[in-house]
């Protein structure tokens, strides 16, 4: 019993991180058609900021979480202003926005990742935080993993609630359904787009900060999360936030079980296998009606 609980829980913990990363990416893609392949690099930045704050300033990583979110939000505003605003204004069609934003974010990926190498070097970094074991129903976890799961779920649900119950959330959903219609009823793209892009990066930064409490970090850590987030989005359906949340947990659990019963080096193969199968069988996502 304890063993199964541990397996499911470790899947859910990874899945929670996947969900937070994927929700941010999904917002950017669903609203602006920005295929931001550099999303994971901002997760890496969030992780490094938290590591720096913990080792240099001795700040509690959980206290520092809001600071990371705000910092990444501001970076997001800057990146949008410098890179993506021009693309969405000058591109003649949605497909061209997708292709160009993909290339630009490809460039961003190289830029940010190598800037991190330059600043912090290629070594693995880490710190210990809340790593005493906790026992629940016969299963043993380290406390930091449970904290990570809690915060990941809380961040996802908070965003879901904002989208569902507030006026801003309504505007975002309207924009996703029909950009022209939303503009006709007075929703301002010039405000909403940068904000949502910033929120996406803030979520990536939070995910990175949470990861840094559990795993060692390196400048190359972001890329696999970008790919996984893209898989999760495909599972959950483009533009669907709830889908991304469920898809993240699903992929986390599938990976945990797959890795346990086959081999840890097959993790990437498993994710891709799931990705290709879903794309072929249900291109609109698992939960599409």
């Amino acid at each position: 019993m304890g063993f199964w609980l541990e397996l499911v829980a470790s899947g859910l913990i990874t899945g929670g991180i996947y969900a937070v990363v994927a929700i941010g990416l999904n917002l950017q893609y669903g609203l602006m058609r920005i295929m931001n392949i550099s999303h994971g690099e901002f997760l890496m930045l969030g992780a490094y900021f938290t590591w720096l704050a913990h080792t240099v300033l001795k700040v509690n990583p959980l206290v520092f979480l809001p600071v990371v979110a705000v910092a990444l939000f501001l970076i997001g505003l800057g990146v949008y202003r410098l890179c993506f605003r021009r693309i969405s204004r000058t591109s003649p069609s949605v497909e061209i926005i997708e292709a160009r934003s993909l290339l630009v974010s490809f460039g961003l990926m190289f830029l940010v990742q190598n800037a991190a190498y330059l600043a912090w070097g290629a070594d693995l970094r880490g710190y210990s935080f809340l790593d005493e074991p906790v026992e629940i129903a016969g299963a043993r976890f380290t406390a930091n993993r449970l904290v990570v799961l809690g915060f990941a779920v809380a961040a996802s649900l908070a965003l879901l609630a904002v989208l569902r119950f507030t006026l801003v959330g309504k505007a975002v959903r309207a924009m996703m359904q029909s950009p022209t219609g939303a503009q006709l009823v007075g929703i301002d793209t010039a405000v909403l787009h940068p904000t949502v892009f910033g929120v996406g990066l803030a979520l990536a930064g939070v995910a990175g900060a949470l990861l840094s409490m559990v795993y060692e970090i390196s400048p190359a850590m972001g890329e696999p999360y970008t790919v996984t987030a893209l898989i999760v989005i495909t599972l959950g359906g483009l533009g669907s936030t709830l889908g991304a949340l469920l898809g993240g947990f699903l992929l986390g659990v599938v990976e945990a079980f797959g890795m346990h019963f086959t081999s840890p080096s097959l993790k990437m193969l498993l994710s891709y296998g799931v990705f290709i199968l879903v794309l072929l069988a249900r291109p609109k996502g698992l939960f599409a009606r």
Partner: protein
Amino acid sequence: MTLRNAVVMTLAAGIVLAAAPWALSAFALSLLLTCLMYAGLTVSWAMFSGATNYLSLATAAFFGIGAYVTAWGLATLPYAVVVPLGGLAAAAFAALIGAAILHLRGAYFAVLTFGLGELVRHAITYSEKSYAHTVGRVLTDVPEAPTVYLTVLFLAAAAIVTCLAVRASRFGLALAGIGADEERAQTLGVNTRRTKIAGFALSAFFAGALGAAMAVRWTYIEPNSVFNPFIGFQTVLIAMVGGAHTVIGPLASSIVFSLLTEFLRLQFPYLFLILLGLLLIVLVLYLPGGIASLWPIARARIGALGARLAKLESGGARG
């Protein structure tokens, strides 16, 4: 320039360059080799992705497959057999994958192909570890440097000639039609599915063959070095900078870029990649058609200037 002139010029340049192993130093030769490799990779990439607007990021995967065919086969087969075999393996893989994913447009296609390199890399790492019990492979008995150079030169020239021939053919028109408007091309009787798979496989053939040919330059082959995402990234970047819709644009920029890479990458590895990233961003934002798109503008300006001069002169003669 007609097709025939272009082909003749390519072949003439090829024959001149074939003398290089006996005229240049070892360092200059290796520089030229890198130029030729990227020229071949970029032109063959642009042949499919430039024409159809299907952004393929799978070059690293094809290149790596070719390199591994060499790693596995060179002990028993001659180099001249291994190289086309590497190309065929990559083409077969591309056809298989293409049949599964080429109905996806835009970002989905790009992302899936981006992941392909990783997928193949992990698959090979896993199979080498569990069945061959190795991490990498040491290549013994590799061919001489001039042989490698001439092979890569031949492949690059073949890629350029193929690309020129494809662009002038019905098949090339069909590819360009898919890029302009896929549904319309289909309505006009193009079998878009078959055309896309054939184009994708053809461009993968050259990437695979180049990978197989270049593999002997590294005496130690391991998945992390031959499935280097940098090769795929550099290929796309060069083609975009040069202008993916042309042949001469990617060709010219591949020479500039490989020289830059050779000189800067070893000395300032991180700074160099930062600059490349920045360059890609600036180019996509401000010059989405590539450097080749400046040429018609420049030509029009020169034409207008000439006309104005002629007008002034005739006006002066009358006055």
